[in-house]
């Protein structure tokens, strides 16, 4: 077994990272769509609903793909970095467009 092979380990840590940071990522990404998508943040009730619906596929997508990380630490670090970037962009969008 070479070191690069993926193994069925660290599931608890990976799943927690996917559930928590994956939800954060879904929240920030859906927020980015709310601000930068068609109509902006004041596009009305239909878009508010759509933005809410966006959370489900992104969250479940991250949660499903989290087993591709080699270990729990990498999952937490990469997802935390992705969260930081996404929330940073969301804050930027809110500052400049809000």
């Amino acid at each position: 077994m070479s070191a690069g092979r993926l193994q069925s380990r660290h599931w608890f840590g990976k799943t927690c990272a996917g559930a928590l940071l994956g939800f954060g990522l879904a929240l920030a990404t859906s927020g980015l769509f709310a601000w930068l998508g068609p109509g902006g943040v004041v596009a009305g009730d239909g878009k508010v609903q759509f933005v809410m619906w966006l959370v489900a596929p992104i969250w479940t997508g991250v949660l499903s793909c989290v087993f591709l990380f080699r270990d729990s630490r990498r999952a937490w670090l990469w997802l935390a970095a992705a969260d930081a970037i996404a929330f940073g962009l969301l804050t930027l969008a809110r500052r400049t467009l809000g």
Partner: protein
Amino acid sequence: MKIRSDIVKVYKNVHIWVGIVAGLMLFIAFYAGAITMFEKPLERWATPPSVLSAPPPLARTPELIAAVLAAHPEAAKAYSVVIEPTPELPARVVWRVRGENRRQSVDYGASFAADGSLQVERLHRARVAQFIDALHQSFGLPFPGAVARPLMGIVALLYAMALVSGTIILLPTFAADFFALRIGRSIKRLWLDVHDALGVVSLPFHLIMALTCVVFAFHDPFYAAQARVVYPHGIHWHEDAPAAAPPAQWLPAFATSVAA
């Protein structure tokens, strides 16, 4: 399609463990969900038939309404004339007495007995639909909604993981496995082929079910989080929810028909 064998192996484990953890609850939810398709026929079957006399002809309706209002003035608030009575709605004139909330309201139906006197019956409906709904929405768990709903949401998340992992496992051998149903050699292989074929064919439906179930369970937290993080002034709905329309087969009675 080529996928590294170690990735396939990990996702095989994920698929197996999700199946072990959530499979039984998903089975209950699927089965009850399929039965909800037959909710109305089941309700009709479980409801005892009405003991009212046959509805009087439509021409005698004003007479019946007058008799009902004389005996039950509370019906004046909301009564309906049924043009074509059915087993579910077996009376010419029906009305609803509201209770504390919608679930506690009671429906009555009226007819004329053979001797011309007024006949009133409380219209019962078997509670089979509520039972199936509870089974479908919370696996029949004896917990309040605030507990059962997040549990169901977690099962829905596992369900989505099962769909993704199952697809990843199948992709490398998709062309070879999809049209294969290897009968004979091994029973295990046969059932796996059936599982694969059913899974691939119904995958779009499964995705919709998994995602809608996640939203059904968690939409309140989703909205609450987005109201804090995304929207500058929270979420304000512009359109009020439309008032619930009355059931289509009930025609509203007009005050003029009473005066007639």
